[in-house]
């Protein structure tokens, strides 16, 4: 009886509001997270080719398979900052890979030669927009391949620091 009375009072006296707006509620958090980093020296370039010496590595990023990425991620910005003290030009290729190692997205960054006294710094941002976001959703791994085009420039190192901005829309 009380509940009905209260319900009657409440529903008859709620004005100037539109509860259908619940359909429009979108939670849109923006997450900033660290990704991979490394400090690459000459000994780790262990593949020789005509274009120079190459170092390769990869890691799984299992969170890319989580529901919030699969269902609600709408954009991702990946920022890579390379600091090169090799006196050689370098090329870095970052690939996003599916569980079967299929390449979903590739980022290619050319890094000018630097020196220990004057490092060469490249700050590169790759924006994956909503039309491309399935590339990230299909990925579970990221691989890094760095080629040093002058194998004789052994002194120095290549450092990578990286971060990702993930934009979500939870509806």
């Amino acid at each position: 009886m009380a509940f009905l009375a209260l319900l009657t009072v409440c529903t008859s006296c709620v004005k100037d509001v539109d509860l259908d707006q619940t359909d429009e509620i979108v939670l849109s958090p923006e997450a900033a997270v660290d990704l991979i980093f490394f400090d690459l020296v000459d000994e780790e370039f262990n593949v020789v080719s005509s274009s120079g010496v190459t170092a390769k590595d990869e890691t799984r990023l299992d969170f890319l398979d989580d529901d919030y990425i699969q269902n609600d991620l709408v954009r991702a910005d990946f920022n890579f900052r390379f600091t090169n003290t090799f006196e050689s030009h370098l090329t870095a290729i970052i690939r996003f890979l599916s569980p079967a190692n299929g390449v979903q997205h590739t980022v290619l960054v050319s890094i000018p030669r630097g020196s220990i006294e004057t490092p060469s710094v490249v700050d590169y941002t790759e924006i994956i927009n909503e039309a491309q976001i399935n590339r990230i959703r299909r990925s579970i791994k990221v691989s890094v391949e760095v080629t040093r085009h002058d194998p004789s420039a052994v002194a120095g190192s290549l450092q990578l620091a990286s971060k990702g901005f993930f934009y979500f829309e939870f509806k």
Partner: protein
Amino acid sequence: MRVFFFLFILTLSQGILAQNKQLLYNFDDLPQTLLLNPGAETNFDMHLGLPLLSQIHLSAGSSGVNMYDIFREDGGSINDRIRKTLHKLSKNDFFTVNQQLEIFSIGWRDQRRRYYTAGIYQEFDAFVYFPKDPAVLAYEGNKNYIGRNFDFSDAAFTAEVLNVFHLGFTNYYSEDLNYGFRGKIYSGIFNAHSVDNTGIFRTELSPEGPNLYRHYMSQVDILINTAGWDELTDSDATNRQLMASFLKKAFLGGNIGLGLDAGFTWYPSDQYRVTASLLDIGFMRQTKNVENYRYYGDYQTDGIELLFPGTREYWDEWEDNLDKNLKDETLTNSYTTWRPVKFNASVDFGFSENAEPCNCYRPMGRRRYFNHLGAQFFAVKRPRGLNFATTLYYDKTFNNNFRGKITYTADSYSFSNIGLLFSARLSNFNVYLAADNLLDYTNLAKAQNASVQLGVQLMFSRE
């Protein structure tokens, strides 16, 4: 996610001091006043509540936001309004719901003018502080808050469903003083309790570190105690089994607690009345169907370091390290909860003398008045301290059958709470209805709190 947020906002959209029953306090024509002050004086010699109908109480409230703030029709974006509200609210804003249902109630006066009461009522009480930092983190993320702490201690809540078995008396100590006590046995049906959480999440720039950011989870210790939750979430239990379990727990088959109410009424003179009461000085020991969910530890990360060549399981190592430092446990440790203690105090002034003959069975050897003007103070203990309310009231007896009371209540959040109580007695049958925040009833969307009490009962006098 959106449904969850909608329910959250709806919960936010109603009431404040949900356990303040300023309309019933000092209303000596109703036995329910004894539940608010066991030392109250009463104008009847016996009462018998109609089972499940003698008191139905519903109230809900929020200290910082109402439905209109979120859902108003102004052509703007609801998401902008939510964001604005999110930043307007503080961690000390709260949302509360309280419901009571008197299952059984009886009272009688003995030859020495003492009044005894006994009864059972069911209560649901939920109190949730606005989890400001976790809410901002969930709604906006950390990208625009680099270098800022997100404090998990903002999250605190209590919720319980219980039956209360009570037995009390009001003693006529002298012509000027009544005092009373009520003993209570709490029979717990459900409890959830999470206060005193600690920990911060922080993302900061890391110019000296190996990566661009460093993420911290520091001194994290989040504990949610529950009793009865496992049964609610048991998907194998049938409705019949659930109901049988609830009934068993409702009637002393579950977790048990003890409590005490105390109060007095003092007449410094015929026209002045001073009252005070302390309610629910008590605790519950949660030992059955207990589950504690704990998340604790310290952790910081710079991301994943690649070591070239790629022979190591970097992700697994990162995740193992995370799990080793931030632990997630489900335990079954008993715990104790304290009931929210309530304090009432009042002073009032009577005028327009009632010259009808006195009933000599009652402690009323003094002049009586048709009208009372008074002030009442209310406080309730919540996890982060006391919440207060102050009420001014005018109580008028129209005749032997009708009496009313109007209240104005102010607290930290509202200065426009007008309440009205009307009680009618036809022979031995009494019905009453009380509601507050009447000014907001023209548009409840703008109300931050609302409550209603109503009931029917039989009352008898010896005269």
